[in-house]
């Protein structure tokens, strides 16, 4: 811990701090996070909420740049909140708090429209760096999630039942290469070097991929609803 690096290598833009709102039902965590955000010059705290209802009500008045969402909320499932926010306020980057960053949770959040996730407990002091990093290209993808995305969004191998004819949400060749490298354990920087790209380009690809995942999951939901006769 004594070797903790300075998280502000990129040089945070203190003149235009990123406004962050927070939905977390556990008071201690909420207070700790709020304090950390407030202490970070590159971030500004837009609000803290213990319930999803409060957050949605507040969003109708003013929208922050980033909304941090805890999945285990008392009044609404975190996923539903993400969906609601992603649908109503597309300009907000929703980030999810998760204890484990496990594949199932992360994928579900990304499909619901989240832009990334933060691991709980791993250095709250890092949060400014993480938020900026995620804003530029999403949270670090684990190889398992990357492989999942490859399988899910691969153009040729889309499942027959999926509405893949219009390829809405199929990966481009470059995106596939990026995901493949990540699924083999390469970091973003290594991936960029491997594919001869700028690091920023890798981030841009990942952002696109997240959007495709969201689109794909929505189209699939519509398709499934059509198939079940729910839509007329």
């Amino acid at each position, binding site marked *: 811990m004594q070797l903790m690096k300075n998280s502000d290598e990129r040089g945070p833009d203190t003149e235009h701090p990123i406004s962050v709102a927070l939905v977390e039902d556990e008071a201690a965590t909420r207070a700790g996070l709020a304090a950390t955000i407030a202490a970070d010059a590159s971030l500004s705290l837009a609000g803290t909420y213990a319930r999803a209802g409060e957050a949605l009500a507040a969003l109708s008045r003013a929208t922050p740049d980033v909304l941090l969402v805890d999945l285990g909320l008392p009044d609404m499932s975190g996923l539903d909140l993400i969906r609601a926010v992603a649908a109503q306020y597309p300009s907000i980057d929703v980030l999810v708090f998760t204890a484990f960053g496990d594949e199932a949770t992360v994928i579900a959040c990304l499909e619901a429209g989240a832009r990334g996730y933060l691991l709980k407990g791993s250095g709250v002091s890092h949060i400014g760096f993480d938020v900026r990093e995620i804003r530029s290209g999403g949270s670090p993808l684990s*190889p398992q999630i990357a492989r999942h995305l490859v399988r899910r969004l*691969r153009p040729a191998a889309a499942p027959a039942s999926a509405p893949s004819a219009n390829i809405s949400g199929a990966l481009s060749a470059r995106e596939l290469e990026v995901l493949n490298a990540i699924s*083999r*354990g390469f*970091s973003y920087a*290594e991936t960029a070097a491997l594919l001869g790209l700028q690091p920023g380009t890798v981030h841009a690809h990942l952002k696109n991929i997240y959007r495709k995942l969201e689109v794909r999951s929505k189209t699939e939901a519509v398709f499934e609803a059509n198939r079940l006769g729910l839509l007329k």
Partner: protein
Amino acid sequence: MIQVLACATVAIGFLLPVSNSVHAQWIEPAPRPLRAIEQVGFLASQALRPPRDEANSQVIQLPDDWSVSRPGTQGVGWYRIEVDLEELPQGIYGLYMPRFAASQMSVVVNGVFIGGTRALLDPRARLTPPALGWSIPAALLRHGSNVIHLRVVADAGYRQGLTRVYFGGAAEVWDARSARERMQGLAHRVFGFTSIVLGFAALVVWFRQRGDVIIGWLGLSAIGAGLGPALDDITGYGRTTALREALVMIYAYGFVPPLLMVLLRLGALRARGMAIMSWGVLGLAFIAALELGLGALPRVSPYVGLFYVCVMAVTVAAYWWSRPALHPRYLVQLIFAAAGLSAAFLLHDLAIWFGAVDFDRMVLMPLVPATLALLTLVTLLSRHLEAYRALRQSRAQLEKRVAERTRELEENYERINKLERVQSAAEERQRIVADMHDGLGGTLVRLLSLIKSGSTDRSTLAGELEQALIELRLSFDSMEDFDHDLLVLLGAVRHRLSRSFELAGIEIDWRVEPLPRTEWLTPQRSRHLQRLLLEVFTNAIRHSNANKVSVAVERTDEARIRVSIKDNGRGFDQAQSALGRGISNIRKRSATLESELVLDTAPGRGTRVILELPKEVLGSALVDTTPI
């Protein structure tokens, strides 16, 4: 059903030929009906002109069978017929004879020769002698008394002579003649050919199904019966020779031995002697006819016929005696009806031959193929229906069995599935327990003892807690899928430790090449590999004081996969290291994975861990239909 069909067919078959005469005699009024001439004058004379001397001729009754009236005679005679016409002759008149019972015949009307048969129609070697009709123009007749002379060449040995003669209008003569011809000529041919065709069909059935001997013999019998009428038409005209006479016998009686075989088989009678005898008699008759030369037919044939009638009668009797019930009853009844009918027809013709009845009666032998054709047809039909029924039954049985088997399979599948689910749930539980035990549990215990021992170094405690969290996250990862890809697993461990590496100031040199996915990477093995890597990396992070860790994954020349992890830290003395417990864990897991582990380290030289996975990893590679 089939009985009704058979009866209807018989009725139609027999009514058709009769219908014409019924029509001719009952429905159409006959303006100049035929009158039978029963009394005639006869004079044995070879003269080519009718005898003038009426005094020498004797008065005789018709029919005149020479074998009765002039036994042993072979010669020529003149018959004198007187016909009184009460009207003025008009149109055409005619003479009708139901059977041409001579070798040759010429007709002279009132002294004018009107025609003759010459040798063309010599009916001696025919099964069915034809009927005869003569047309007489009115110009040759006169009102009142007319004299018609018939010159007849006959052979008493062949039971020839003159049958009854009928005089009347030409139309009536030709009606009568065609009715008779239809019955024993046309029916003859139709039934004969039908019988042959059906016989061949039966033989085809037998050829396909050799066990069905009855249908085979029946087919032969039908062919034998049909050949007579067919060959009669072909060979019946022309000169009579010894060979032709012998052949006539073969095709007259050829149907009997096979029919006898059918009867014997049907009754399950073991009368081998009778079977051999019935074939032997046919052969003997043929040879005898050839040996005896021309004229043998009348001397041999009736006795052969008599013999067969007796044999058939005996067989039928024997059948009724034994009464086996091996076949459908209607079929047995039909076969015996056919055999009985054939025997009756044969008997009737023998009665003609032996003079028991008038020799101008219709010959019934031509109807034998009709009965046999019908019998064969019904038998074929019944076989077909039986086969169809059997097929339906066996299909129903098969479907039932398939359904049963399917149900069994489904049940088995369900059971196995359930068992597998139970088993895999148990395995998963075991895995999680083991995971908690070596991972999180151990860390927590260590942490607890640290706190109890009074160590309050916050960073140590935070480090331990961090480690516990990492353990827990790895557990989560191992519950998800690594997609059977070793690199995904390796990358996931790196990913989980990336913050730790970063905090420890360690740079990672990641050198991996794409590997095929492999079946080898089961959840169990994944967990061991994951833990092994965690142990190696944690040692590097905590104890090595290194600033670079190289990870390389490559294929060896022996088609194995080698994972090398190397740091540039301070290394350690393997003999006295405090890391002993961790190292022994690494070795254990490597052994569990059936891999080879090389630990290469010494103080001041860094640490290198080389893990060579078993050959099976590449050996059980998965083939992706769409390569990633």
